[in-house]
């Protein structure tokens, strides 16, 4: 009797095991195919729940996060995440653009804000600098080079952030970043911040080589390793009659 049902039981057990394990990153093996729902089931549901209501200890609910969130996390490659406790960091996106669109549409079908439309040109770079210095530079550093968030996190550098991603991050508050709604930072202010962030990709390095725009630490390294070494070589050449 059991022998007749055994193959089915084995298949069911295998399916359950595959169901429970985290979804493989799309780069491994054949690209995942299918519509948004099946992509979700394969890559996201193990942590975020098959009903998008989240799994305690693994992933938050996705109902109501909308295209705004889904597009942010997928286009910056922060999701899928290998381990629920990891800090999501920028990666090459795991999905091709059509697959991303499908996934985003699927998640958006459960409600939530759309992908924001940001026009940095409509913002003021000076206003952006003021807002950034007050709200953002504590974590992201005043020209967006990123930094530590104690005890063990990292606020990323903003070099690769597009204007849309800046706006999305402001509204979502990913990982441990605070979030700001439209009452606090309206769309024009968000556009200004995006414009300022774009300008920090190539800041006004009027004084020469910017050495990373990180401040006194690279400057001290230059003082020792360029000036110090050069002058040591000079005195070596001058002293002891150049021997």
């Amino acid at each position, binding site marked *: 009797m059991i022998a007749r049902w055994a193959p089915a039981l084995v298949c069911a057990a295998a399916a359950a095991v595959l169901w429970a394990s985290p979804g493989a990153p799309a780069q491994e093996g054949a690209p995942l195919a299918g519509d948004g729902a099946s992509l979700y089931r394969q890559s996201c549901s193990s942590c975020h729940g098959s009903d998008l209501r989240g799994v305690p200890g693994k992933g938050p609910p996705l109902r109501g996060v909308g295209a705004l969130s889904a597009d942010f996390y997928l286009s910056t490659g922060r999701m899928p995440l290998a381990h629920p406790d990891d800090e999501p960091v920028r990666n090459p996106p795991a999905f091709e653009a059509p697959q991303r669109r499908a996934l985003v549409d699927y998640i958006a079908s459960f409600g939530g804000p759309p992908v924001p439309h940001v026009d940095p040109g409509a913002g003021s770079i000076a206003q952006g600098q003021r807002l950034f210095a007050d709200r953002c530079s504590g*974590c992201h550093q005043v020209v967006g080079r990123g930094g530590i968030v*104690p005890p063990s996190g990292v606020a990323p550098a903003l070099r690769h952030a597009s204007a849309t991603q800046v706006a999305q991050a402001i509204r979502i508050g990913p990982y441990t970043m*605070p979030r700001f709604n439209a009452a606090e930072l309206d769309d024009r202010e968000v556009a200004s911040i995006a414009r300022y962030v774009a300008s920090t990709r190539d800041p006004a390095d009027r004084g020469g080589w910017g050495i990373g725009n990180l401040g006194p630490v690279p400057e001290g390294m230059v003082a020792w390793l360029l000036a110090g070494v050069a002058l040591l070589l000079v005195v070596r050449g001058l002293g002891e009659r150049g021997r």
Partner: protein
Amino acid sequence: MRRLLRAIVALLVGTRAVRGAARGEQPEQTEADPRRREIVSTPRRELVLAVLLLAAAAFAIAFVVLILGGDPVQWEAVTLGGAFACLAAALGYAGLKVVPQETEVEERPQLEGPEAEEQLRRTLAAGGDGVSRRRLLTVAGLTAGGSLAAALAVPAISLGPAVGEAPFRSPWRRGRALVDEHGEPISADDVVEGSHLTAFPADADPRELGSPVALVRVAPDTLRLPPERRDWAPEGLLAYSKICTHAGCAVSLYRYPLSEDTTGEPPALACPCHYSMFAVREGARVIGGPAGRPLPQLPLEIAADRTLRAAGPLSGAVGPAWWGVRRT
């Protein structure tokens, strides 16, 4: 070529004589007189020197032209630096290859002179011949000197006020509205869970140390404030002084986990200078870093028009701790 061969042989065989020969010295010198004087200049070397000097001049002229013409900083540096570099090369070349190379010997000065010291002591002592009441005069002299020095130092008190209760003074009073950096009142609906704002007291100097506060909102059921502060956080809105109690930087990092059960860290304000962390749900208790005191908390109330107001003064001294001054 010969030097190279000698060096290789020396390496392989290890003879001191070979090493010495490679350096061009007499082997095993003892007590040699180091005095030397060599004339080294040749017409060719003098020509090289002249070329270096003229190159320095050329760079310097280029610098002047650049300054008068425009302001490309990098080219200014290349020309001016180049001029100095050529001058350095010229002077070094002259000093090493053109002027006579000399090694001289000089005797060191005798620094000690016991006889002279004795004479000095006697001269000094002789100035007090006949003076008998030395103790009295010493005490009187020291008193005069000390008093005069203290008198000259006293005007320094006009440089600033004594500390007193200053760290506890701030513009925050009961009923004072919270405004943003443009002076606009802040509404409770402007601040969502996970938000982080800087707020100031209305009609006060924002640059006074006690003025800026960090305004955040957490879920009200997660609050863990001490019992006497139960009413200080309406709807989970919290305000803390933004000046770090460690060394006075602005507490401008805010960590609010989107998914707390996977992130594992509670919401906290943190300071970018030395990474002190303050748990916002627990009255800005220090949960990491070198700060010794929690951030003073500002009690809040929500007015009828939903704007935020202070419900009292800050709970403690603002900013870093002072030696010998009260903490709370």
